[in-house]
């Protein structure tokens, strides 16, 4: 599927997650965040940066990992990305959401 975000056409899956991180940029992230009712702040960007790095180095994302990262505590993580912080932050970061096997 394709979606036009901020004038740019990007590939997304059925749930709206970007399927190619190289098409991601900060303007797209701002738009995706807006769709979720989130106004991006420095702290948001710090988290996005952290989870993108995890993804690029093929390390699994977990709540525990976030907790140990020193970037943010879990309460703040929930406050920044309400309604499922891993699900929402990965959407904004342009990477796949954490999944189970089915």
């Amino acid at each position, binding site marked *: *599927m394709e979606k036009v975000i901020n004038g740019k056409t990007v590939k997304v*899956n*059925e*749930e709206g997650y970007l399927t190619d991180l190289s098409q991601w940029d900060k303007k797209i992230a701002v738009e995706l965040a807006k769709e979720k009712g989130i106004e991006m702040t420095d702290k948001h960007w710090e988290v996005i940066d952290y989870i993108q790095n995890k993804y690029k180095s*093929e*390390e*699994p994302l*977990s*709540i*525990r*990992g976030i907790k*140990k*990262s020193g970037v943010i505590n*879990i*309460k703040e*993580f*929930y406050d920044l990305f*309400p*309604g*499922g*912080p891993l*699900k929402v932050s990965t959407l904004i970061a342009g990477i796949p*959401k*954490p*999944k*189970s*096997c*089915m």
Partner: protein
Amino acid sequence: MKKLLILGAGTSGTMMANHMVKKLPREDWDITIVDQYKTHYYQPGFLFLPFDLYKSKDVKKKGENFIPRGVNYVLQKIDKIVPEKNQVILEKEILSYDILIIATGTKIFPGEVEGMKGPKWYKNIFDFYTYEGAKALRNKLREWEGGKLVVHISEMPIKCPVAPLEFAFLADSYFINKKMRDKVDITFVTPMGGAFTKPKATKALHYLLEGKNIKEVTDFAIERVDYENNKIYDYGGQEVEYDLLVTVPPNLGDPVIERSGLGDDMNFVPTHKATLQSKAHKNIFVIGDASNLPASKAGSVAHFEAEILEENILRYIKGEPLKEEFDGHANCFIETGHGKALLIDFNYTHEPVEGTFPFPGVGPLKLLKESRMNHFGKLAFRWIYWNMLLKGTHIPFVSATMSESGKHFEKED
């Protein structure tokens, strides 16, 4: 004499001992496997034990029966791995190695969640990922008179990610058979976006939840258990009330991995996902749940890994480049209750889809669809596990890498 050392005699370690003893010449190689426990458990059976579908003897046997002749079997606790010296420190001796296989698995850590392993642990809060937990839960269920049953996953990743959902399905059957389903309210609580997380599976299988009247609470990242008031709370402010909490506590790698400084945030060993070589040390390989691979933590995955790891260790010994072949292949039967089951077959890049297995277009097993045949497949698997899988025997018609034929993949859009 060169030394191959295997840490952990569970599913993965035992399989590797059986694979390697057939391939390495005895005059050159000494193979040793270490574990602290003498019992080998059939872990998939822990799902059936609470419902009186399996008995204790179905799920536990003596580990030594499965260690092949020609392999040294050492029953000791492992204190530490020292990769710089190619040594492993055990409680009573130090073993050196030329090649190390880490197969130390994953364990549950209920102490990681506030209030979980408190005074109500094994009173009205249970796990079913250990023999002790599954058995205690069986005794509880035998006398339980009903109320709010909450089936809960603490955090991902966990071993056998669908087991909690299977537990909920089997609980529905169990209480119907006991003629008390109307007295039991079943809720499935998950840290993910849904009980199903992949689009095809969600579409094909969500009816199971509605049909069995299982409620779903999603995006629930547990903060604490209030065992005095029988409630679980998450970081986002959600709360769920229970009378009986069946939880999957956090799954972490073995503490020996942390003591050795070899793990990630969850004590899993960073591992090359296609070769199974550890990222930090060339002569250390990792198999099964102990690795950080983005594959399911499951016996079938370990079985497919073993076939590829055997070859890569032989290549490593000869100084040849390793085969980048492991594709994350998993093949799992999923109990849906009432004598039916599903079968899923998938890998790193392909989500489970509908189709036939193992023979394209023929079956006899159907993928991603409930059937009685699949349930018999799951029951037959216990025999396959003890008699073929642990011994490293190739399962006929099922290849280590996933086959795409006979499956209903959509064209890439």
